[in-house]
């Protein structure tokens, strides 16, 4: 299935959760803020957020800024 992450198309396996996707990408979930189909996902819900074909995901993190 295909989902859009940060504006780019990604291929994911069916049954993947937000948490398993982040782990597969080597990204520490504690450093991520997620917006799933336009709604903020709290960190403790990453493991129960199932990804579906056509979903849109924004994944952000803090960076240096003024």
């Amino acid at each position: 299935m295909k989902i859009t992450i940060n504006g780019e198309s990604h291929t994911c396996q069916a049954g993947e959760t937000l948490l398993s996707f982040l782990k597969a990408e080597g990204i520490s979930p504690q450093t991520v803020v997620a917006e799933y189909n336009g709604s903020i996902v709290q960190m403790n819900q990453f493991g129960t957020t199932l990804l579906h074909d056509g979903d849109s995901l924004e994944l952000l993190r803090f960076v240096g800024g003024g």
Partner: protein
Amino acid sequence: MLLEVNEKKGRNIMEDQLIIGGKEIKSRLFLGTGKFGDDHLIPKCIEASGAQIITVAMRRIDFHTSQENMMQYIPKDCILMPNTSGARNAEEAVRIARLGRAAGCGDWVKIEVVSDNKYLLPDNEETLKAVDTLVKEGFTVLPYMTPDLYAARRMRDSGAAAVMPFGAPIGTNKGLRTREVVQIMAEELDLPVVVDAGIGKPSEAAECMEIGAAAVLVNTAVATAGDPVRMAAAFGKAVQAGREAFLASPGAVRQYAEASSPLTGFLHEA
């Protein structure tokens, strides 16, 4: 003795507190974390400057490059203030602010709404809309703004915890080019005025404080200095010196010389 002098003319230094969002802020220097050549310098600069309020930005994760988690470089006792940089209108600023809060780093936010990429000047009208929404959602909101007394009053009426007019465009190191308006804002507003952006040297930060600013926010000036840690320490001292000078009430400016030594008792007097 100090207090006696100040009762006459200046202000009471003993009671000089900076309160923003119901919190007493220890340092009148706010520090940004962008543009550092090496993020390891960030905690050293925070320590050297004494800064307590630290700004960060939020960006999309880049899957093509490995990125360090910069939050590990910010001491836990700091107040984290995510900015909404990248927002071009109020809606985008509100969205970024909510995401920042979801990251679990408190409810402070620096509103930054910019749609002009050449000078990065903040859009006061859109900023005000974002302030309005976010204050109602319980954020402690500090808007970055184009210096303007009326706009600042509206921000205050909407519940902004402070206002942050620029001294010069972001990253220019040009100093306090907006002095007249910032001074009027500091005089007329009953909430803290924080000069944010454009300050390049400690003397300019001191100047902001001397004319009554409550605090100064710097980033580029420290991050791009030859020795950022030393520059951070210099800014910390400059802000303190400027604040004390403001509290002490500087003497009058005069057109002609006025001798500091007595004008009588010269050797040549008959």
